[in-house]
């Protein structure tokens, strides 16, 4: 090989200058695209191509439906690893590099995190308001911050209880309607060496969903900064309830839902039920020999109030900051997630969660399911569940880190620290995370 050419050397020299500049002011994401002028739509004669990063499989098939009808806006999808498992780091680094896709799948809970790095286009400047009526108002609230709209809701995960009818019958139980009834059934099942469900220490989003159902709102955006309250009655009683359940060994902590060990246990009947989001149906259908054994019931309620259901998961289609055609991107995102065609396509090819359009849950979901004992569970259970949600919940700019902090505290439960203490400690840590990012936060006065 010949030594470097002069031009390459020049490039290195430029690189050196660049790095020196970076050393001084290298932190990316400090400027906002939403302060700049809006980008006018491209003329119909010059077709645009939009790149869309998502971890939905076969998304291109849905995009192709759109592409066939909209020759001037072509969408090309790229599969990326799911969210925190690699997708977000990829997006963050692409944004930091001044690039990235036009559209991306971003979970509802992650939208504020992208706002923190100025990663999203404010769609209200491109006419998002006209689509607001199409989507579930609870979800729309979760993409709306400081007067802007930062993503089009794609799906959500209203929760219910999936249970094995035969195992419940064995102990003479019907699906519990309250959490205390749930604990009683769990105790009966334990006599048969069966666990009613699992409780994951490492994924705090499950606990978060239970607390949300009880009526908690941990963080609230206000005029003068964030207000935190994780010691409210709803959260504390939820923590106490699961402290007791864990102390009495009512739930398994040996493995998490959807792990191979869980599939084995659900298959051989040592796990009787699962309280989780609507999208769990597709996963439960993967349990070997499970056909006809499972049904779905509304999730148990908290006695002291709260809501009929909760939510876990849920994504949006967001327009990333370096998108050069936000208007066209918005048009596509609204079609994909709001139109019957788009929703049916997403369900059929990608297996998305609960439709974000309350007027259309998807054609296939209006049918009874042979796997779930012929039950028409979507209409019967999830449609009501999707309306019985905590409307005040809001995600915050350090959600992932907060959930990790919470999980780190929960991991100490086997060592003797209660969930209650864990939540209280986590609140302090989350506050300091806010402060270290230079955001103002205060505790809610009791």
């Amino acid at each position: 090989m010949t030594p470097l050419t002069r031009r390459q050397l020049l490039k290195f020299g430029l690189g050196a200058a660049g790095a020196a500049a970076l050393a001084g002011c290298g932190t990316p994401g400090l400027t906002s695209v939403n302060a700049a002028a809006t980008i006018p739509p491209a003329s119909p004669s010059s077709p645009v191509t939009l790149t869309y990063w998502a971890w939905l499989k076969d998304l291109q098939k849905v995009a192709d439906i759109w592409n066939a009808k909209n020759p001037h806006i072509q969408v090309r999808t790229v599969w990326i690893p799911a969210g925190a498992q690699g997708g977000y780091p990829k997006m963050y680094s692409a944004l930091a590099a001044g690039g990235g896709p036009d559209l991306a799948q971003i979970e509802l809970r992650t939208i504020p995190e992208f706002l923190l790095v100025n990663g999203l286009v404010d769609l209200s400047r491109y006419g998002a308001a006209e689509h607001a009526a199409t989507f579930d108002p609870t979800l729309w609230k979760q993409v709306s911050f400081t007067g802007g709209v930062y993503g089009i809701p794609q799906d959500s995960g209203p929760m219910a209880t999936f249970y094995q009818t035969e195992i419940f019958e064995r102990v003479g139980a019907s699906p519990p309607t309250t959490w205390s009834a749930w604990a009683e059934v769990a105790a009966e099942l334990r006599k048969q060496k069966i666990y009613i469900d699992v409780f994951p220490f490492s994924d705090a989003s499950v606990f978060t969903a239970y607390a949300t159902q009880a009526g908690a709102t941990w963080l609230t955006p206000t005029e003068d900064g964030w207000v935190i309250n994780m010691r409210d009655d709803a959260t504390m009683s939820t923590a106490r309830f699961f402290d007791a359940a864990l102390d009495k060994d009512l739930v398994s902590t040996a493995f998490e839902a959807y792990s191979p060990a869980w599939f084995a246990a659900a298959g051989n009947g040592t796990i009787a039920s699962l309280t989780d989001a609507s999208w769990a149906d597709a996963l439960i259908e993967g349990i070997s020999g499970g056909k006809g054994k499972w049904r779905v019931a509304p999730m148990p309620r908290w006695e002291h109030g709260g809501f009929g259901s909760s939510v876990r998961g849920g994504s949006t289609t967001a327009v990333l900051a370096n998108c050069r055609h936000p208007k066209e991107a918005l048009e596509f995102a609204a079609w994909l997630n709001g139109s019957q065609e788009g929703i049916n396509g997403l369900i059929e090819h990608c297996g998305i969660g609960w439709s974000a359009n309350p007027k259309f849950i998807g054609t296939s979901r209006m049918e009874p399911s042979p796997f779930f004992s012929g039950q028409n569970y979507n209409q019967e259970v999830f449609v009501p569940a999707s309306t019985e949600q905590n409307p005040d919940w809001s995600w915050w700019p350090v959600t992932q880190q907060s959930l990790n902090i919470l999980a780190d505290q929960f991991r100490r439960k086997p060592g003797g620290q209660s969930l209650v203490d864990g939540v209280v400690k986590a609140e302090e840590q989350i506050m300091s995370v806010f402060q270290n990012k230079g955001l103002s936060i205060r505790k809610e006065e009791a």
Partner: protein
Amino acid sequence: MTAPASDQTRTRGRRTGEQRAPWILLAPFLLVFLFTFILPILAAVGSSFMQVTRSGLFGEQGVTQEFAWFHNYALALGDGSFITSIGRMFLFGIVQVPIMIIAATILAFLLESASARWPGLFRAAFFLPYGVPGVIATILWTFLYVPGLSPIIDVASWMGIDIDFLGPSTVLWSIANIVTWSYTGYNMLIIIAQLKSIPGELYEAAHVDGASPFRIARSIQVPLIAPALMLTTVFSIIGTLQLFAEPQVLQSVSPAIDSQYTPNLSAYTTAFAYNDYNVAAAQAVLIALVAFILSFAFLRLTNRKDQ
């Protein structure tokens, strides 16, 4: 080839040639080194001293960056999880590195002893894992760790033993096993190379003196392979502090591995998942410092013993 010249000019030309030559030869390496090591390190050190302050809920009312002195270092050192991860790596290193080096030494001795049959075959078998990338090695072992998939767990449960390779107290040693599996053969080969370089006369002299094989190993072989042992130990220490791929891959099956399980994982999470580039830079600088101090201390210690 060169045109004949007077002796004097030739010498002068040669001198300047000799002065310039090393720099010309070094230039390509140094350029890439500067570009891919020095500048990024300077940039990391620089950004580890900066801090971002935001106003409003997301910084929408303005973001400022300022010099923060050692604020980020204080945050990194005040972060219990980060300190725990360094402590975890110490524990890991103190147990895993000696086990691996001792195992590699014993295997090298056994293979080099006349007692071994098919040494070539065994050497190849032991060395094979070195060629398997850490990620793929971890995927391989993941299958043997996961309940429901792992035949090892099945076999153990027939015998009435419950093993959990992925639990909070065991997963560190499951990682240690992967690292040991990957690098023992490699370290063994380095030691074998050194053993082979011991002059035959030394052995003959020892035999004439009637030394036992054990005695030969202790008095001749171990001292002479000491440099190789030292080198492999230093690299293992550095490798331990940089552990990343194994825990990152195992994360998907072991809930016990949190996002800050190792120092490197911690820095990666802080930078790419929490978007806190400044604190991440401080963490990376701290990792480098610890690696440097450890290697330095180890070399000092062993050198003193030698003298």
